[in-house]
């Protein structure tokens, strides 16, 4: 089974499936618990919810991480077994020499801060650059594939 997640969506599964998304400036956050074989992916758009209670939890870094962690725990996972992978945060329409901190980088920093708060290590980062990324997570094995339409310059 395949599940393509759109912006602001979260998908968590304890059965074999392939979760896919495409990110540019947004962040695809994958969390995997190899012991319980539960995994999930969020497509996060912005860093902070700032009290936006009507938004889906996947929209903001702070709410997405909390939602993923609590859902995975409710399905039998433990925080100490979780490993995270982050991809995205590209600045596709900006100069590649720019030192400006883009919204994509801000998103990643916010995700990492939340993960650090839970003690979840980020084992793989594919962040920044000027190209979008296709991210696929195999929930049977925890394997994650990150690819680009074009090779990075």
């Amino acid at each position, binding site marked *: 089974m395949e599940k*393509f997640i*759109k*912006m*602001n969506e979260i998908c968590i599964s304890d059965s074999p499936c392939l979760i896919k*998304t*495409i*990110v*540019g*400036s*947004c962040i695809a956050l994958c969390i995997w618990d190899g012991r319980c074989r539960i995994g999930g992916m969020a497509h996060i*758009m*912005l860093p902070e919810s700032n009290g*936006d209670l009507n938004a889906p939890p996947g929209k903001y870094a702070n709410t997405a991480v909390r939602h993923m962690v609590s859902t995975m725990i409710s399905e039998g996972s433990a925080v100490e077994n979780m490993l995270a992978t982050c991809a995205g945060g*590209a*600045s*596709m*329409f*900006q100069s590649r020499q720019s030192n400006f901190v*883009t*919204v*994509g980088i801000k998103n990643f920093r916010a995700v990492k801060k939340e993960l650090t708060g839970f003690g979840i290590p980020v084992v793989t980062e594919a962040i920044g650059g*000027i*190209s*979008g*990324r*296709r991210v696929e997570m195999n929930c049977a094995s925890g394997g994650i594939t990150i690819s680009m*339409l*074009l090779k990075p310059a």
Partner: protein
Amino acid sequence: MTVVNTAKSNVFSKSEHLRLEKSLKELLMESFNRAAEACTRLLMQDMIISRYRIEMITGEDFIDQLEDQMEEGYFASIIRLQNSVNTTILFLLTEEDGKGLYRILNGMKPDAGLPPLEDLTDSIGELNNILGNTFINCLANTLDQRINGSVPRNTLDLLGAILESVILQSELANKNIFYAEALISHKETAAFNVRLIILSDKNQLLKVLSRS
């Protein structure tokens, strides 16, 4: 504490709101027609608006509408209006159409080899520069205001990645936006589908329009 802006200039009655929206749609259609004319002159082929849509939606809904094309490769170029309403002009072409247009613009045969991708994207950006500035000039003349556009920023990437980056970098993610799109195609063969998309902060745009 909640702060409510009650300035009269920020509030439109329902009828005034409808009138402004109607004016805006007319203005955009006029601008799209000018862009199609510019496309015809540039390519020396008869290009027409084969489809258009104008809607008020959120940034997220805008992306959802194009969900089935997210994994396709597109040439994209954006121009942002400066010192004016938060507006982005997005120009999209499929990878295949982009290569075809490059050949036409450079007088090459259909099967001729192509230059490096960077040159291709710059060429596509130049087309956006012309179409985008046609749009900007039309807007500036109608509103009787000076409006400048940024230098085009160009890329070739997956449509999903392009669209979300445009919404985020334009800071339109959490706003109601005025979304207008015209598909400019060859009159007879329907080839070369040029997608010209205007994304604008709806409230800002209506305020500017109400002052003109």
